[in-house]
């Protein structure tokens, strides 16, 4: 379909703006600062705008469209009431620099959310500021730095331990925080290899970063031992909360011994993912780390009411503007209030759904670790590839023809031809069965008609897209007059990179 720029006609417009002919025209701007050439924004009437984006939306697939088992992303239903609440003028039009007295409702909501997150993570203090999990990770590692700096161990402790199953953001955050990476292996049951670990944790270790359950969807059975190792060595433990959906109300990171947690509000606590964001990545910490949290802190005042406290002399500073993505807080807060203590049922259903799908897919796909899973699991298309030349990518593309969004693929890296499947709690058994039937049918197709997979998808607005070409000759903006016309010589597409995390 056409780009909005290709629909543009000079002289058209969607906007009318207030004009104040009465006012004296503004002072001329200095020549060298004045815009020399108008930007070529689209010129369309309002209804063309609406039609264009309406049509675009029909070429997109969301949770509202159907099943979206994208592993590690927790694509659950997003209650519509949350949208209504976040849009209330009292929130949407509230300026972040409003005086405290003029923002009591917003401050109270944030304070209540902090309290809830502390209870759910089993930790003491919460900062809502980070904009997403990744920023939560960086914030957490900067907290680790500040903590050891305050103890005079900054120079000594330069290493952060990360298992080979970790999400890419973990190592990336380690580097951004100025730390060195110490990788640790995964054992035959899918837990951290504790022997390997013992040899790598010492007085130079600053922290462990762990996702538990791991990206394999497996809960680390040795977590207590691991806790002893790290705390024994005077190091801290960081919990990547991306998989919190598995354990809410059942086991809390604080109970597992973690000192710092980031929570992906947009995963476990239901935010519409918006095609890539927004999210929220609050961090919860043990009391020893509270002094270092970002400013301002949202506090309840002795004298009553709520406020913003900048008085944290040891703070790491700010990682984002203001106090965080407030609209995200409204949604997650409402979500929490509609669950209350029943939140445990949410995690139980998520784990039940995942195990059910796993049980049904075992027969046709390789299972790297034969255990019960938590809220998600990883299977492999390794045999399909060996026997029929159909890769995880082919399976993913073929799933599209059955009307499902593919799972995450080629992640975690330690599992070849990985398919990482997370159904979430909000799916009906009928949907899970339909998905399983499709996966099993696809496995059969791989044997009978492999090209059905290799040439998939067949029923989407576009056929398989050439990602290699896109990276080789990047076209990242519309070229107007000089925009390249696609040459029709088809090119085969293929990629083995992690897709979906």
């Amino acid at each position, binding site marked *: 379909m056409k780009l909005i720029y290709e629909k543009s006609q000079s002289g058209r*417009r*969607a906007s009318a703006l*207030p004009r*104040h002919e009465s006012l004296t025209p503004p002072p001329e*701007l200095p020549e060298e600062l*004045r*815009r*020399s*050439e108008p*930007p070529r*924004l689209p*010129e369309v009437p309002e209804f063309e705008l609406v039609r264009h984006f*309406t049509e675009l939306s029909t070429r*997109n*697939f*969301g*949770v*509202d*469209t159907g099943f*979206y088992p994208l592993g590690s992303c927790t694509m659950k239903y997003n209650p519509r009431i949350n949208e209504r*609440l*976040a849009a209330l*003028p009292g*929130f949407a039009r*509230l*300026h972040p*620099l409003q005086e405290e007295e*003029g923002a009591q*409702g*917003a401050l109270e909501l944030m304070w209540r959310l902090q309290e809830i997150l502390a209870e759910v993570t089993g930790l003491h203090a919460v900062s809502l500021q980070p904009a*997403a999990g990744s920023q939560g990770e*960086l914030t957490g590692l900067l907290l680790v730095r500040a903590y050891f700096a305050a103890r005079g161990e900054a120079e000594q402790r330069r290493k952060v331990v990360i298992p080979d199953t970790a999400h890419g953001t973990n190592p*990336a955050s380690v580097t951004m925080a100025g730390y060195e990476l110490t990788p640790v292996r995964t054992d035959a049951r899918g837990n951290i290899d504790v022997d390997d670990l013992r040899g790598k944790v010492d007085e130079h270790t600053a922290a462990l970063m762990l996702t538990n359950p791991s990206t394999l969807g497996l*809960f680390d059975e040795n977590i*207590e031992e691991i806790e002893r190792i790290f705390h024994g060595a005077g190091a801290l433990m960081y919990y990547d909360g991306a998989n919190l959906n598995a354990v809410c109300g059942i086991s809390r990171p604080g109970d597992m011994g973690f000192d710092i947690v980031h929570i992906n509000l947009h995963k476990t606590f239901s935010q519409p993912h918006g*095609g890539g*964001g*927004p999210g929220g990545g609050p961090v919860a910490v043990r009391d020893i780390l509270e002094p270092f949290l970002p400013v301002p802190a949202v506090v309840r005042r002795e004298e009553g009411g709520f406020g913003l406290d900048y008085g944290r002399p040891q703070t790491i500073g700010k990682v984002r*503007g*203001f106090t965080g993505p407030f609209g995200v807080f409204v949604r997650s807060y409402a979500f929490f209030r*509609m669950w209350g*203590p029943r939140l445990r049922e949410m995690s139980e*259903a998520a784990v*039940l759904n995942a195990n*059910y799908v796993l049980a049904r897919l075992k027969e046709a796909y390789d299972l790297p670790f034969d255990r*019960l899973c938590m809220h998600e699991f990883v299977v492999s298309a390794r045999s399909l590839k060996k026997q029929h030349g159909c890769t995880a990518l082919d399976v993913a593309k073929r799933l*599209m023809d059955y009307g499902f*969004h593919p799972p995450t693929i080629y992640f975690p890296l330690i599992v070849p031809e990985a398919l990482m499947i997370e159904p979430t709690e909000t799916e009906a058994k009928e949907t899970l069965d339909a998905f399983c039937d499709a996966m099993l049918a696809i496995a059969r197709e791989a044997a009978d008609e492999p090209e059905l997979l290799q040439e998939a998808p067949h029923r*989407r607005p*576009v*056929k398989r*897209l*050439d990602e290699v*070409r*896109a*990276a080789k000759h*990047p076209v990242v903006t*519309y070229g107007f007059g000089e925009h390249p016309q*696609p040459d*029709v010589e088809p090119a085969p597409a293929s990629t083995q990179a992690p897709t979906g995390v």
Partner: protein
Amino acid sequence: MTHPFLALTDSDRDEMLGTIGVATVDELFRDLPEGIRLGRELDLEPALSEQEVFAHVAELAERNADASRELCFLGAGMYDHYVPAVVDAVLQRGELLTAYTPYQPEMSQGVLQAIFEYQTAVCELTGMDVSNASGYDGTSVAADACYVAKHATGRDRIVVTEATNPQVRQVVKTYATGFGLEVVEVAHRGGTTDPGELERAAADAAAVIFQQPNFFGCLEPAPELVAAAAEAGALPVAHVDLLSLGVLEAPGRYGAALALGEGQSAGNFPSFGGPNYGFLAARQEFIRRMPGRIVGETVDTAGERGYVLTLQTREQHIRREKATSNITTNQTLLALGGLVYLTWLGPQGLRELGETCLSLAAYAKQRLAERAGVEPVFATQTTFKEFAVRVGRNAREVVAAARERGVHPGYALGRDYEGMDDVLLVAVTERRTPEEIDRLADVLAEVAG
């Protein structure tokens, strides 16, 4: 009762457990050591129905003095611009709202094409060659730029002007500790930055960050600042307001290496600080150092045009500890809001909007002086939609007194700048009317010293 967010009936549960081969749901958690289990119910208030949660949260919203309840001249980084109804209408389309990052392009052409259109709009406005799909906000993209500059120049100092948004400076400093960068600030002289002074500070700096219009609302001699930075071999980074770029020159035109900023003013509600989006654009040479998602055009196996996430070898899921950034979840939906809004405006609308801000702000300056005897701090400087005035007494007291009269007169600059306790930063968007400005003047006449 089955929770409305679940589909699980008792018979479903039994069947599923049977297929799994366990007797109870508890068994599914057998890998969890006893010692770490919660073993009690979460200590949270009882579940509420939708109707009850609506009543409760709406009551919280009522207790905020938002811009619909209080006449608002607050700016200082976030602005009460009008967000047209088409923005929400588009963003509330479930297919866009409830999708995630378009990892599987054949499922996500809608979002991918929209991001491509967004990238184009940002590049058109800034005069740059490449834009990412969004950063967290106007502060974090500045930190991102430092990471780009560090690797591009191999240098480890960042220069930022004091007239740049204080929150941007704070976030840059926070990230800098991790990046191993030193941050130095260059003071303003009468509201703007002196190019000579900047050039001296920029010696062996990786980047020079300045804001246009700056935090005081004044127009910096941007071309000279950029030249000064370049002179010193530092990357000139312009922090700009998209809505000013209908009337102000595109940073790319005067040589900036990167242009970035806070996107909220273009298509997002202030929403007490977010969610909003940061835009980040750069010259072609930095394309492989950019953080975050970038969408590129390609073809499918039938030769049809399509869009995909591209240059992913920059990113954490492939490059891991060598990635250009750790960002994954970003602010796509808010950036789409920006695209819809900019499409709504069009070039004509954008220019008119800029002109309206200019004339209303000029009118405000004049009225405040005439009616309230409140004079601009930087009288000789040209401003866009925001300006600083001396109010003759502590500005926070003035704010409190004005709010009692239903007007929030602006931001007390003393919160960030020494010696400015009596200075108010007044923002005037196209959403304000001359009558409302007169009202501000009258209120200040009462409450200013």
